[in-house]
Structure formats: structure tokens, C-alpha cells
């Protein structure tokens, strides 16, 4: 696999506590990689190490196949959680300053800034001061500043906080577009819905350790416990009778406003789903039949709780 960035066995100590303890991650090129974890888990420290702002005490970071150097930082775009812009400076002037700090020429920077401002429909803000903008507006400016120099690696820390759904949608669209154009995105957030939507792979960091790593789909599958949900019209008892021959944990849910009842049933981990479907089809009139995957939210909470009680998070089964 081609990784744009790897961090191997990173340990970082501060005076009073260990911020990162033997953390490893590997970010595949061209993916959206979720860096998850509760507050204070060590995500920001890891991001700072990737940004070459602080150095790890132990461990190795590679970028694009070689050990990370200060020069590589020009290939990284970083959008911090708390937005950092000069309040008293005009939007355009400021964006130009940051673009040039990243090494763009003045003319080149201005041209592509104008383009981006148009794309995000904020051209009329060019001469406004940051303090005159709302939080979401300032965030758009910050987003442009982050991506303008077309970095190979983009790091977004909570990019959607403060955005209304429309603007969050615009931002998601732009992030995916950047990925399609070849950029790799590291995405740090607490918003698990957006993780399901955007991320290809995740690492979950808790209490300075990486407790869970893998592709989002595989993780959901792994934690799912092979549960199926059937909505149907007909006799629930008939369904129960035939389903309980095949799986366990038959549970009956409520009836929705269209008259369909819901039932869930768990199959063994590697069991074939076709007998269940056939039996259910015999017993009732099926409206829908789906494999239930746990939400990332559930996985996050369960994994963090397991790790806090010193259990192995990969052993947990949800449902």
C-alpha cells in the first residue's frame, strides 16, 4: 500500500503527562483518514508532530516515503480547531500573507485566491476585516488559506464546527473534490456522522494510545455482530417461529405509521444470510431487509469505554 504519511511508535512526554504513548498510524495516499478520540486524547499533539511544530521524543514520522523534514511542511495544509486569523487585518491581505508564507508568488497567490473566493462565493469579503465576519464566514477564509497552496496532505481539525448545514455541505463537497484531485486528507473530529460520510479509514486515540485502527466499513462490520433488521407486514409470531430456527436474539420492535413492524435477529458471525431471508419471506410480507451496522458513534463510545476499563476494544461486540 502507498502511504503518504506514516507515524511509527510515536511517544511524546510533557512535564506532567505522556501525551502520546507508542502511537502508530499509516495514512494511505488519496484517502480521507479520520483521527478520532475524546478531548485531550493526544490528537492535537500528534497533528503538531506531523506539522513539524513539535518533535516526538521517540518514534519516526515519514512523509511521502522519506523521514519528515521541515521542508515537507510546505506540502501540508493545516486547519486548526480554533481558527487563527488576524482580527484587524483585511481578508484579502491576510489570505495573501499566508499564501506567500507557504511559498506562493504574489501574483500567483492573488490569482488563485480570487478564484477560490469566487468558488466559495465570498468575493465581496476581500476588503473586510476578519473581526467584521461571523465565525462561519471566517472559517471559509481559513479553509481557503489552508488549501490554496495545493498541499499533498491536508489536516482538518473539526472543520465543520460553526457551519450551517448548507455551508457544511459546500465544505464537504470541496474536501471530497480535493481528495479526488489527489490530495490526502486527515480529518480530526467528534462528529461521527461526518466520519461515516467522509472517512475511508480511521484511528481512534484514547488516553495517549491508538486503540482502534482500520477502514470504516470493516470496523462497522467487525463490531456489528451480524445483525439483520426486517420490516414487514404480517404475523410477528410466524416470523419469530421461523427466524428462531436460524438465528438468535430475535427482538420485536414497534409498528411504524405505515403498519410495518420491525424485528431484528442476530446470525452467527460467518453465517449465510440466505436461509434467514428465505424463511422470513415464507412467514411474512417483507418490506425491507438490511444488515444493521453499528454507527461510528456507538463504536467510538464502546471502544473508549472498553479502553478506559482496560479491556481490549477490538474484542467488543455491539448489539
Amino acid at each position, binding site marked *: 500500500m502507498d502511504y503518504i504519511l506514516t507515524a511509527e511508535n510515536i511517544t511524546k512526554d510533557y*512535564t506532567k503527562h505522556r501525551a502520546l504513548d507508542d502511537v502508530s498510524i499509516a495514512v494511505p495516499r488519496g484517502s480521507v483518514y479520520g483521527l478520532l478520540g475524546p478531548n485531550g486524547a493526544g490528537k492535537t499533539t500528534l497533528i*503538531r508532530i506531523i*506539522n513539524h*511544530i*513539535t*518533535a516526538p521524543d521517540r518514534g519516526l514520522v515519514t512523509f511521502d516515503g522519506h523521514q519528515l523534514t*521541515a521542508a515537507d*511542511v*510546505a506540502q*501540508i495544509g*493545516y486547519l*486548526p480547531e*480554533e*481558527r*487563527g*486569523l*488576524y*482580527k*484587524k*487585518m483585511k481578508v484579502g491581505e491576510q489570505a495573501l*500573507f*499566508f499564501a*506567500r*508564507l*507557504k*511559498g506562493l508568488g504574489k501574483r500567483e497567490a492573488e490569482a488563485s485566491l480570487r478564484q477560490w473566493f469566487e468558488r466559495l462565493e465570498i468575493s465581496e469579503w476581500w476588503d473586510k476585516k476578519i473581526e467584521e465576519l461571523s465565525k462561519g464566514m471566517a472559517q471559509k477564509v*481559513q479553509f481557503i*488559506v489552508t488549501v490554496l497552496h495545493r498541499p499533498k496532505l491536508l489536516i482538518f481539525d473539526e472543520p465543520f464546527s460553526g457551519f450551517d448545514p448548507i455551508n457544511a455541505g459546500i465544505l464537504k463537497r470541496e474536501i471530497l473534490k480535493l481528495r479526488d484531485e489527489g490530495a490526502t486528507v486527515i480529518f480530526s473530529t467528534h462528529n461521527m456522522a461526518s466520519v461515516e460520510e467522509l472517512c475511508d479509514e480511521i484511528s481512534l486515540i484514547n488516553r495517549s494510545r491508538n486503540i482502534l485502527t482500520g477502514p470504516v466499513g470493516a470496523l462497522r462490520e467487525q463490531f456489528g455482530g451480524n445483525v439483520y433488521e426486517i420490516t414487514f407486514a404480517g404475523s410477528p409470531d410466524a416470523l419469530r417461529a421461523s427466524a428462531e430456527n436460524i438465528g438468535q436474539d430475535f427482538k420485536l420492535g414497534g409498528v411504524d405509521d405505515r403498519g410495518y413492524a420491525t424485528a431484528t435477529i442476530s446470525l452467527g458471525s460467518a453465517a449465510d444470510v440466505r436461509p434467514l431471508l428465505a424463511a422470513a419471506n415464507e412467514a411474512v410480507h417483507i418490506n425491507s431487509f438490511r444488515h444493521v451496522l453499528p454507527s461510528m458513534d456507538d463504536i467510538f463510545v464502546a471502544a473508549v469505554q472498553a479502553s478506559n476499563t482496560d479491556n481490549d476494544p477490538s474484542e467488543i461486540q455491539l448489539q
Partner: protein
Amino acid sequence: MNHSLKLIIAREYLTRVKRKSFIITTILVPLLMIAISLAPAAVMLLSSPENRNIAVVDQTRIIAPRLDSNDEVKFVSVDAPLDSLRADTDFDAILVIDANAVKNPADAIRLYSRGAPAMQTGAYINSQLEDAIEDIRLEEYNIDNIKQILASVNADFELATIRIDKEEDTATSVGLSYVIGLTLDMMLYMFILIYGQMVMNSIIEEKNNRVLEIVVSSVKPTWLMLGKISGIGLVAITQILIWAVLIGSCSLWSMPLLGDLGASSESTEIAAAMSQLSDTGFIAGLFLYLLLFFIGGYLFYSAIYAAIGSAVDNVQDASQLSTIATMPVIIGIISSMAVLSNPGSTLAFWVSVIPFTSPMAMMSRLPYGVPTWEIILSLVVLYISFAFLIWLCAKIYRVGIFMYGKKPTLIEIIRWARYK
């Protein structure tokens, strides 16, 4: 020069110079300074007191005739009881002279005044009385031509000081040197404190609104710190230069006037002062040293201020720590006051070598003339210590800017310097 350093300096410089507050203070302060120096004269002109009538009740009958009225004070001899005079609003004051006034004036003469008398009025009446009583007492000795004799023995004069350690003997004015030294001192003190704290506050602001994280993801923290210090320093130099040009052009215009005044003045002190002031080389030299010591002192202290700014989250927390920087500046200004009154002392030498106090101390000594090797020594020590300090403070800064929350102690801050 490093590309990003240039960008940072340009940003720091331009955003400040373009601010309205900068433009206003830069233009207003010299005007204010000129106004302040003209103020005493203006006040004198405006406050010349109106005619004051003084009723004189003289029981000796020999003092009153000797009192001369002038434009402001008019003595009128009257012969009426004090009580009736008190009611008479024609008089602003009543001077009562008892019979034993010549012998014992302090007890025998009183001035009853309606409202507080103006200082000059009181002083004028007093000097008139003294002259009158002295004259009367002299006459009591019955010596002929006593006044002429006294005039011929009067030896009131001012000592002229000529510097022999300079290439040509020049008359110098100790008074002027004192005033120039004090002015330069105060300017340096103000500039170091104001601009040093500007560095600190601007770092705290950047840390608070997290701009720092964006900037240091593009440039090294040390470059950011150096860029900020240099950019703000250039703002200060711009201000000094503009002031110099404004004040300089005012003086150029008044220079011939000063020369004339000096030439026509009877006082050697004033003559020396005026010739010194119209000596362009002397002024330009002072200005050059002011710049050199300002730059050194500013860099030295701003490095400390930068380290403090990086260590705290808000201005309130900074105020305590910033005494680390403010105290030496204040000690510097206090010791240079001592230096001003004795510029050749051992203390003066040492405080003008130690970098914490040397900019201020040197500024107070320079107008008196300081051996060149001492100036060079002082500058070299100052700039070397600045280089060391900036290296040390950059290490603290690099760690401090990412420390949020708890206010660190001084010991913790020093420990940061040892972080890898």
C-alpha cells in the same frame, strides 16, 4: 534574507504603520513637545497679573517712600486704621509695617491679602521691602559713597567650562548636557517600554486567537519571533526618524536665532549652550548614538518581553511576569539619574557597560562626552548579550507558545529553555 522572515517583518511593519493611531501619535507628539516647551512662556504672557493696589500702613514712615510701584503692583501710602481698610475693596492687599520694622522685619511686617496673592506679586513686594530695609540699614552706618563701594566689590559671575579632552577647546554647558541627557534618557526609556510591551502583547494576541498555529505550520517559531521583533523595531525607528525630521527642521529654522542669542548673551553658560545646540555635528552624533543604543536596548528587552508573552495566555497574567523586564528598565532610568549628576564616576562606567542599564546610562552620559572606547565597549557588550538573550528567549518562546491554561512560574519558564 529568508523569504518568510521578510514577509513577517513586512506584515508586522505595514499593519502598524498604516494604523490611524500610529499616524496620529507620530505627528501629534512632536507638536505636543513643541507646545509644552512653549507653554511656560505662553502662560507667563497670559497670566501677567492685573494692577494690584497695595495699601501701605507704614509706622516707620521711611520704608513706604522707598517702595517702587511697577506695572503690576501699585503701592499707596494710607493713614487709616486696619479695620476700615479691610472693608475697602479698592485695595487688593494691605501691607502693615510696624515701627520696629527696620530692626526686626520678619515680625514687624505683614501683608493682609484679599485672596491668595500671585507668586510674582508676593516676591516683588518682598524684594522691594528687603531692598528698602537694606538701604536704610546701610545709611545708618553713615559711610560716604557706600553704594558705589558695594557695587565695585560685587563679584557675581558664572564659571565657563572648557573641555580640554576634545580636539579643540570648546565651551560646553553643563546645564545643557544635563537637559539633553535627561531628554534622551526619557525617550529611550519610553521607547523601550512601549515597543517592548507591544511585542509582548502582540504575541499574547497571536497565541490567543491561534494565528500562531497557522503561522508556525509554515515557518519556524524562531523566525516568527525574530520577524515580529524586527518589524515592530522598524516601526519604532520610523517614528524616531519622523520625529527627528520634524524637530530637526524646526531647529534648523531657529538655529540662526539661537546663534545670535548665544552671541549676544552676556551669560557664558547660555552662550556655550547655544553654540553647542547649533553644532550640527554634535547633534547628529547624539542622534546616531541614540539610534544605536535604542536598537540594542530594544532588541535586548524585546527578546525578554517575547519570551514572557509566549508563556502566558492573557495580558493580566503577563503583568506580573513582565516586571522581570520592567524592573531593570526602571533601575536603568534611576541609575542614569545618578549618572547624570556625576557622569565620570565609577558607577557611571559600570552601569553603562552592563547591558540591562547601559542604553539608558549611556544616553545620560553622552552629552557630556564619553571616550570612544567606552562607547564601543558598551555597544559590543549590549549587542553580544542581545544575541545570547534572543537565542535563549527563542527557546522559551518555541515551547511557551503551545502552553495553554496554567500560568507558568518563572522556574518552569527557565526550564523550557532546556527542552529539545
